[in-house]
């Protein structure tokens, strides 16, 4: 089951070696919270972190991204695309967020391919970290079947310890690139039978450590929502909604964006940028002629929940909600997706 073993200190050294060729992005502490940031020294990475306040999309799909620069002068127009395909390694991605990246990968590759996302993603190695227990109260990753990931990483780290209680990372390869990086490294050792047993123990303990929060099985959520389209719960809950969009913007699977052109003061050149957008914002579904498809907060809330638990899964086959709980935590009105699912089930 395991491919290699490495000590924490050797792993930091390995990442720093990798850092000569790649930007290193991973969890760092700010106060008592963790954020994904670029680091110059892998020793700054807090690999025992609980959760990153913003998911991996904050790096893979930046909040503000320049798509192209243009020049428009005397009737001529030229545009130059801007791509960020600098090699990077994303170190420390939990299984829920690996599932989220899988969805982003699928969405940005379907229909018209999004080169800005795909090039950055293609240049990024992903090193996952398995979590032994829920990272925070209120998460429902196990209900969403996203607390474990068998793919979507180049290398996966399992937090294990050896017979003397020393911490060791158990390594699993998920891609040829991951295998190539570590196979011939003298810092890694082959797993022993005891290491394999430790990994099995870890996985057994993990399976028991994640409580369930949903009263409905995830496969049943689409039908439940189908029957709940006209529920009074949407209005009753949305009366609290600020329509601030915090749930969308912190969601690791929300990928909607708005476009904005910005001119230099010369008025002959400028950039087109995209910015994170969200379906809870009142202007999101506003179209020409001043028509808004979802003018009411209740319609917007219903739309979000339907996207997360029904429509995305039906369209792409992968989870639209990974159960990380970021939306619930970000909501200053304390509107909770889990509560909505459970209340709908109760009313059903």
């Amino acid at each position, binding site marked *: 089951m395991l491919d290699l073993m490495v000590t924490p200190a050797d792993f930091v050294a390995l990442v720093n070696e990798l850092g000569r060729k790649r930007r290193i992005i991973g969890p760092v502490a700010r106060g008592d919270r963790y954020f994904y940031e670029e680091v110059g020294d892998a020793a700054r990475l807090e690999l025992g972190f609980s959760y990153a306040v913003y998911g991996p999309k904050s790096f893979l799909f930046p909040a503000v991204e320049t798509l192209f620069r243009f020049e428009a002068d005397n009737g001529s127009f030229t545009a130059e695309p801007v791509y960020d395909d600098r090699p990077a390694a994303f170190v420390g991605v939990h299984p829920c967020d690996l599932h989220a990246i899988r969805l982003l990968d699928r969405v940005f590759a379907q229909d018209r391919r999004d080169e800005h996302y795909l090039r950055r993603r293609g240049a990024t190695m992903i090193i996952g970290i398995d979590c032994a227990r829920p990272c925070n109260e209120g998460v429902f990753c196990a209900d969403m079947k996203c607390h474990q990931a068998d793919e979507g990483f180049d290398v996966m780290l399992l937090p294990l310890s050896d017979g003397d209680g020393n911490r060791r990372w158990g390594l699993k390869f998920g891609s040829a690139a991951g295998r190539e990086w570590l196979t011939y490294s003298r810092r890694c050792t082959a797993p022993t039978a005891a290491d394999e047993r430790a990994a099995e123990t870890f996985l057994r303990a993990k399976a028991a450590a994640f409580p369930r929060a949903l009263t409905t099985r995830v496969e049943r959520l689409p039908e439940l929502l189908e029957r709940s389209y006209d529920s009074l719960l949407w209005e009753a809950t949305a009366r*609290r909604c600020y329509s601030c969009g*915090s749930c969308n913007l912190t969601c690791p699977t929300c990928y909607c964006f708005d476009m904005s052109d910005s001119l230099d003061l010369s008025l002959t050149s400028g950039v087109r940028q995209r910015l*994170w957008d969200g379906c809870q914002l009142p202007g999101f579904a506003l179209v020409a002629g001043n028509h808004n498809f979802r003018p009411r907060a209740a319609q917007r809330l219903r739309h979000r929940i339907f996207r997360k638990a029904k429509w995305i899964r039906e369209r792409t086959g992968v989870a639209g909600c990974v159960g990380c709980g970021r939306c619930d935590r970000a909501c200053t009105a304390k509107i909770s997706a889990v509560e909505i699912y459970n209340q709908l089930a109760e009313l059903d």
Partner: protein
Amino acid sequence: MKPKIAIFSLTSCEGCSLAILELEDQLLDLLGAVEIVNFREGMTERAWDIDVGFVDGAVSTPQDDEEVRHFRAHCKTLVAIGSCACLGGINTLKHYQSGGATRDEGAAHAAGGNGRVAEYRRYVYGENAEWFATTPARPISAVVAVDYQLPGCPMVKEEFVELVKCLLIGKPFRLPETAVCVECKRRGSRCLYEMGIICFGPITRAGCNAICPAYGSKCEGCRGLVSPDAIAAAGINLREQYRVDLNEALADLRLYGAYQEALLP
């Protein structure tokens, strides 16, 4: 022909006018695109043939009232800059220093209505308070028609440049219709609610790039309310979810928002 620009000040600290001079690295480009013909903070010449006039400060004295009408008459486009000009700003706090409980009651006291000279005037001007005429403080839109508003304390200078560019190329200019939370999330800040701080980000218009929460200070609403729906939600949430005394929340909101119509339910 470069458009002729003027910058005027009413009752205020004139910090918004100064914010234009703080554009520093863009100032030369800006001066290449427009001609500034009247600017007390930046030059001595005065001209009154003006394409775009920017005004900071609230209308808080009879003289302000006269001046803002004069600006309007001489500017083809009139822009209110800063919380004072757009919302009345902190000037409107005086209404509540005289015992007024509501906007109109406070304004009546401030005007010296109900047969009493407002206490704040004695506090500020001493025994000769009568020599200094004041009126209730109002945003300039309460006196003259305003074409654009750039709220904020101070105004956001990048937004000022954006408006200038829009005017130069004839592109519609719109303020963001979203709450400050959007910009907090885009810049990756930590939510102050997680630290038990009641922040006005969810009800305040974005555009400031959420600068206060980014440095750990709660949003005080200097750019005005984002929508009546948001303030209605705030009333419910502060009472039901946070057990906050709504009178206290309202008093906090009055720092900039006293003149705004929408009040907590």
